[in-house]
């Protein structure tokens, strides 16, 4: 079976999963099977089949597992978003745009994606600009004290998601060029390292967002390690980051508060509530979101409540868990599908990561290896940071779960990431055939 045939079979299976899941949701809600669920399942499959045709034309030797895996993840996301807000069909629109973006990238870069390497500094500048954009006056938007959004009037987006990809492209080009020099470990070559560390700290200060700083700095360290093979750099970088973050922890209230919530979400005695200034139990105030989300996960138990049967609202319709479709989509999935379903979802992420890393291994030039490894590690780290935050492994930060969370920029950015991985694997496999 060729990679494309495997992809086709995988996509049909993903379509079946999406159709069944949507049908279950409508069944639980209306107690009857509405034909619209099947229509949605059919449209979902048609969209991915279109993408499949484009891949067949532009990257015929690309890895056959990635696109079906992404399809399954978007099926999870679409189902939960539809389940939580049946009136909001926007997520489906974003997936449509995302797939279009995937096709566009494939078509534009079909001959040789490595032209990106020659624009590496442009991507570096773009990454910094995108990261700092939300703290710019007029267009920057602050949501719950974190500056992650840009509002251009007609369209709102989270530039951090795109910045991540720009950063990986820049680092892949830059590190391929300088890896030998840096590996020698002379003091003057630590300049860029310190500069990027400084940028990460600046991002925390500017946006109050620990999550995207952790994500981008983690990507940087991982790529630095792949390029130079010097674990010492990683250790030094980690020490710098932890040191800087600890300092900022004491200096910035917002970061301090996130860490306090993480360490002790429940209190027995009333404590200062940063939202109202009163004395309240922390679980009734600052850690309200985290604690309610944990209750949602706990309520799922082993087998879950079943799709459409989870409890997210009080009988009077009031929301019990805030930000459910974005930050806490995982706790909604964990409640309705239980440990079985949540573990299956995480497993899909793991297979995606394993395939991505395999592409990096098989790629033949340094730029391609660094690009694939950086994109894949960023994908894994982002999954870890948001779900780990929900599960109280790390402090909770407001970044999205790739392909699953509601949100346009995130969906589009991850489809672009997928397109790049497909292109890298296409080239590697094509070369190994000849």
């Amino acid at each position, binding site marked *: 079976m060729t990679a494309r045939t495997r992809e086709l079979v995988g996509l049909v299976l993903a379509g079946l999963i999406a159709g069944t899941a949507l049908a279950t949701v409508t069944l639980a809600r209306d107690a009857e099977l509405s034909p619209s669920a099947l229509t949605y399942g059919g449209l979902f499959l048609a969209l991915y089949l279109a993408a499949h045709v484009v891949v067949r034309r532009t990257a015929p030797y690309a890895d056959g597992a990635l696109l079906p895996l992404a399809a399954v993840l978007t099926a999870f996301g679409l189902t939960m978003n539809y389940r939580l807000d049946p009136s909001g069909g926007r997520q489906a629109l974003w997936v449509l745009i995302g797939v279009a973006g995937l096709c566009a990238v494939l078509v534009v870069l079909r001959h040789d994606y490595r032209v990106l390497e020659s624009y590496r500094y442009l991507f570096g500048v773009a990454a910094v600009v995108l990261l700092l954009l939300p703290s710019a006056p007029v267009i920057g938007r602050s949501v719950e004290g974190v500056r992650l959004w840009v509002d251009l009037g007609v369209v709102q987006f989270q530039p951090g998601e795109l910045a991540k990809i720009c950063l990986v492209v820049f680092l892949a080009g830059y590190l391929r060029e300088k890896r030998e020099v840096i590996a020698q470990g002379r003091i003057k070559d630590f300049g860029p390292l310190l500069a990027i560390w400084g940028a990460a700290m600046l991002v925390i200060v500017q946006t109050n967002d620990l999550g995207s700083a952790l994500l981008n700095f983690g990507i940087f360290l991982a790529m630095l390690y792949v390029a130079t093979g010097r674990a010492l750099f990683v250790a030094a970088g980690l020490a710098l980051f932890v040191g800087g973050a600890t300092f900022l922890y004491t200096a910035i209230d917002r970061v301090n508060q996130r860490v306090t919530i993480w360490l002790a979400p429940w209190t027995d005695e009333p404590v200062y509530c940063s939202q109202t200034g009163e004395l309240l139990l922390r679980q009734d105030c600052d850690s309200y979101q985290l604690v309610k989300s944990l209750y949602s996960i706990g309520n799922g138990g082993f087998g879950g409540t079943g799709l459409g049967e989870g409890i997210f609202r009080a009988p009077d319709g009031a929301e019990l868990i805030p930000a459910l479709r974005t930050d806490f989509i995982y706790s909604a999935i964990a409640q309705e599908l239980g440990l079985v379903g949540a573990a299956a979802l995480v497993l899909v992420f793991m297979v995606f990561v394993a395939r991505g890393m395999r592409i990096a*291994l098989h790629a033949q030039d340094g730029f391609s290896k660094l690009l694939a490894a950086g994109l894949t*590690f960023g994908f894994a780290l982002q999954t870890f940071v948001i779900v780990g935050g929900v*599960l109280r492994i790390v402090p909770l930060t407001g970044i999205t779960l790739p392909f699953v969370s509601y949100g346009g920029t995130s969906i589009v950015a991850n489809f672009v990431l997928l397109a790049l991985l497909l292109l890298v694997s296409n080239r590697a496999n094509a070369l190994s055939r000849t």
Partner: protein
Amino acid sequence: MNRQIVRLTYVALALVGALVVMTTYWQTWAAAGLADRQDNAIKRVAEFAVDRGLILTAQPRARLARNRPREVGGKTLYFRAYPQGKLTAHLVGYSTVGKSRTGLERSLNDYLTASRANLSTLVDSALDELRGKPIKGNHVVTTLDLEAQRVAMQQLGDQCGAVVALDPRTGKVRVLASSPSFDPNLVEDRFDQISNITARCRNPSPLLNRGSAGLFVPGSTFKVITAAAALESRRFTPRSQFTDPGYCLVYGRRVNNFDTSRPFGRIDLETALVHSVNSVFCNIGKSLRAKRILDTARRFGFYERPPLETPADERRPSGLYDDGRLYYPEENPDVDAGRMAFGQERMLVTPLQMAMVAGAIGNGGRLFEPQAVARIVSPRGDVVLRQRPRLIRQAVSRPTADAVARMMRLAVSRGTGTAAQIPGWSVGGKTGTGETGVAGSNTTWFIAFASRDESSPAELAIAVVLENQAGTGGATAAPIARAVMQAILSQRGNP
């Protein structure tokens, strides 16, 4: 670079794999702990899909809490209704979506939702769940005497106070009335109406269960404990002689009797309790010193939460309080034993505790655990849990208890508590008037027990407390005690 990429792959997979581990932790090991948390609104809402067990009284069979099923979003949810309204609000509590739970609704939630049960009911509920039927909870049968409870609430009227009555031979609680009360049916949607009440006291707090969580100055009712401590010390007998000048000197200051115009002169301990002579108990207190009296109080259950099925934070321990905290003196001189001996000096007690004291005295010193639940029954009628009488301890020796009981009987037959006499029953009681120094704001008490004759054990014990009173305990609380006791005893032709 490939070696680094392989290592990076391990790191990436380990990070994502850690998510499975932590999800497993929260959904298995930690799930029960999460479900038990008071602020777990999801669990609370989930439990509204359970056909919650009823809360009942045995005789006459009446429903204190029942279900009102309603269709919400295609599912049947079981909302609570409380047919008795204000009558049993404090013991039963409430179960709502918005305001969490209180009372038995909270402490017995696991039984009422069938999430704690024996194996056979667990299998039943698992099968129901598979069949898509609602899970049925277990029913709770209380020990309350609904008629007597009604009499108690009527007698309390718009006064602030509480009545607690129990059977000292078993600890079964017959009356647990607290006034002002609230209508638990209003909690969900019209909570603001609850505090909108008229009651004759400064701080009505209708949600407070005064019976088990209200702390009051015990006044002269504490003399029962002082007398028991005196006899237990073997330094005094009921015939010990005292001279009453009408006051007692404590740290050089006079502490007066209730009626200073009429000193008793030569008087023995028994007569001093019958007429509630402060100076005598003041001198006993100074002689015994604080810790000896407090140790006897402890034997009666002071300094620990009285065991009852209600949530722990709806019960408070009795004892000395300092700045709102329970306080046990390190050294005897830390406490004014003379004033403590007749129930002043930072001593605060709950009506439940004082009913336990009266019951133990009437029952030969045997102190039983108070119980408001008789049994818990599965939907099929099997008994899931049957409460059996549990002896806490022999609080004081039998001769001591009987001697104090005799004093209390005399107090009712010819002393301060004559208003509590019941024809055909031998009632022993003790009045109390906690003076606050402001006219019309006394805390008045009556604690009592009733037996068939002077030599048989008490079948009923009661404590009545009233806030913001102008009169004495004998005039205000004793008639209420008599009315409630009569209501219970009239059904007891042949037990």
